[in-house]
């Protein structure tokens, strides 16, 4: 089976119309007509992840995020870049092929990134979660305690929090990656991957700092982009196995980049 045929099967099984105009969900490097020896699913095509996929004999990588360090995987300014050459040479020399599934994953029901994120942070009942944020209710605890639970459940090193650690919280909004939900009147805590800190569409950080100054129980928990969407790619691999049977499929995590 070629990489192109794998993608055709994914398009057929994704459960909705396929948007061929998505600039994200395309082949990024390698020859689509390569015979697939094995599939690695991952959150981000890091060089480290490529090394591990290759060592495991997996030559097709399906990633949720980009390969060339920008959302469009635009390489026109990178052709003379040494790191670009090194990464592309590694992919081509080893007969690897990279394909991204981002936009369509977020349209699927369920959205595996959200399902995986909820499981990662220890919130139960999220097996059918979709992209549109909703409130998840947990037994009342403090923001500090909850953040500690999230850290223990996710095994993440660099979780940043805003708000009063003693604030009593139970209503949680969760969003993956850069789609960190905006704080609402109904929510106590927003959990996201990353977000511009200020001057964006809605600045959770300043809002929660001010809410805390007013004595309102509000908090932000920033997991980091990789941690927030990592587990979803394990679920994506399991989903692939329901319609691709004769090729090994493995989840190859991208490491949390932070110290």
């Amino acid at each position: 089976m070629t990489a192109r045929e794998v993608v055709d099967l994914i398009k057929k099984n994704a459960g909705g119309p396929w948007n061929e105009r998505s600039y994200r969900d395309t082949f990024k490097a390698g020859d689509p007509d390569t015979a697939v020896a094995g599939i690695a699913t991952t959150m981000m095509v890091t060089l480290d992840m490529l090394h591990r996929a290759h060592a495991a004999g997996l030559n097709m990588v399906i990633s949720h995020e980009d390969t060339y360090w920008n959302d469009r995987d635009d390489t026109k300014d990178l052709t003379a870049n040494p790191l670009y050459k090194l990464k592309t040479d590694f992919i081509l020399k080893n007969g690897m092929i990279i394909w991204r599934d981002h936009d369509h994953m977020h349209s699927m029901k369920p959205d595996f990134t959200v399902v995986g994120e909820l499981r990662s942070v220890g919130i139960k009942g999220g097996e059918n979660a979709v992209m549109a944020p909703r409130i998840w209710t947990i037994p009342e605890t403090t923001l500090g305690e909850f953040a500690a639970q999230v850290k223990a459940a996710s095994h993440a090193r660099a979780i940043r929090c805003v708000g009063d650690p003693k604030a009593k919280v139970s209503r949680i909004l969760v969003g993956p990656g850069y789609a960190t939900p905006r704080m609402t009147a109904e929510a106590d805590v927003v959990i996201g991957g990353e977000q511009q800190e200020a001057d964006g569409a809605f600045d959770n950080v300043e809002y929660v700092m001010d809410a805390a100054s007013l004595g309102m129980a509000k908090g932000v928990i920033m997991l980091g982009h990789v941690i927030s969407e990592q587990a979803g790619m394990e679920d994506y691999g399991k989903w692939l196995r329901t319609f691709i049977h004769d090729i090994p499929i493995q989840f190859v995590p991208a490491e949390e980049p932070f110290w």
Partner: protein
Amino acid sequence: MAGAAGAGTLGVRGAGPLTAEAVARRIQTELGGEWPETGADGFKAGEPSTAVTGIATTAMATIDVLKQAAKANANLVLTYEPTFYGHADGRTPAVPAGRRGPVGLNADDPVAKAKRELIQKNGLVVFRLRDHWAARKENEMLTGLAGALGWSKRRVANDDSLFDVPAATAEETVAHIRAKLNLRGGLRGVGDRKATVRRVLLYPGSMTPAIMWQRYTEVDMFVVGEVREWENTHYAADIFTAGQKRALITVGRVVSEEPGMRACANWLKTVVKEVPATWIGAGDPYWRAS
């Protein structure tokens, strides 16, 4: 005729009260450039005709900063970042609601309402000063950050953002940065923590990928406000995997902008001599889950 009559009531400069509007005009004249109504800079809250008793500068006019300004009798607050939680900054946004929820603020938002009441009750005036301050050729946003880190005399060239700092490991340099900027939990490091750091590229605010792609071979460490993780963080992680001894440090957007606004208060003292100008720090917003 109107001019002659006005001279008696309004007085010549220095005789009448110095209004927030007059301070803004003086800042606009000094900094130059266009100041369109649709731009980011301008009045965000309060009455521009208010007589100014003192000026406070800050990277971000949080409620805590506004309370400190009121206490210090500084009723004109100049802020680098928005006051009302987003780029629209209290205006009705032109962008329709998307799948990530509505952009901007609800009219009855309780936090924004309390903030507006605090501003009104204390007679404060809030003015955003970002684009025009950042555009100054003296680049105090950069030199201010370098000064706060004790690296003012270590700039490689006056028109660039490279600094030759005392040789130390990346971890030791981070410890220095943490102490100098009084950080809590916002700083994150990527790359080789044992790398010997001599040359640093400093970048307050948000750094784009192109800067990283073009300049990483020149420096041992980037010290920046923030980046997008799926862009520059990803790049720094790949550099590390490729065996290069470099690191990327993000200190947090707001804390990276604080020293530049401290420098702004010092500059104001030379432009507005009638009232005191002081800097009020918004502080590192983050703590770490543990």
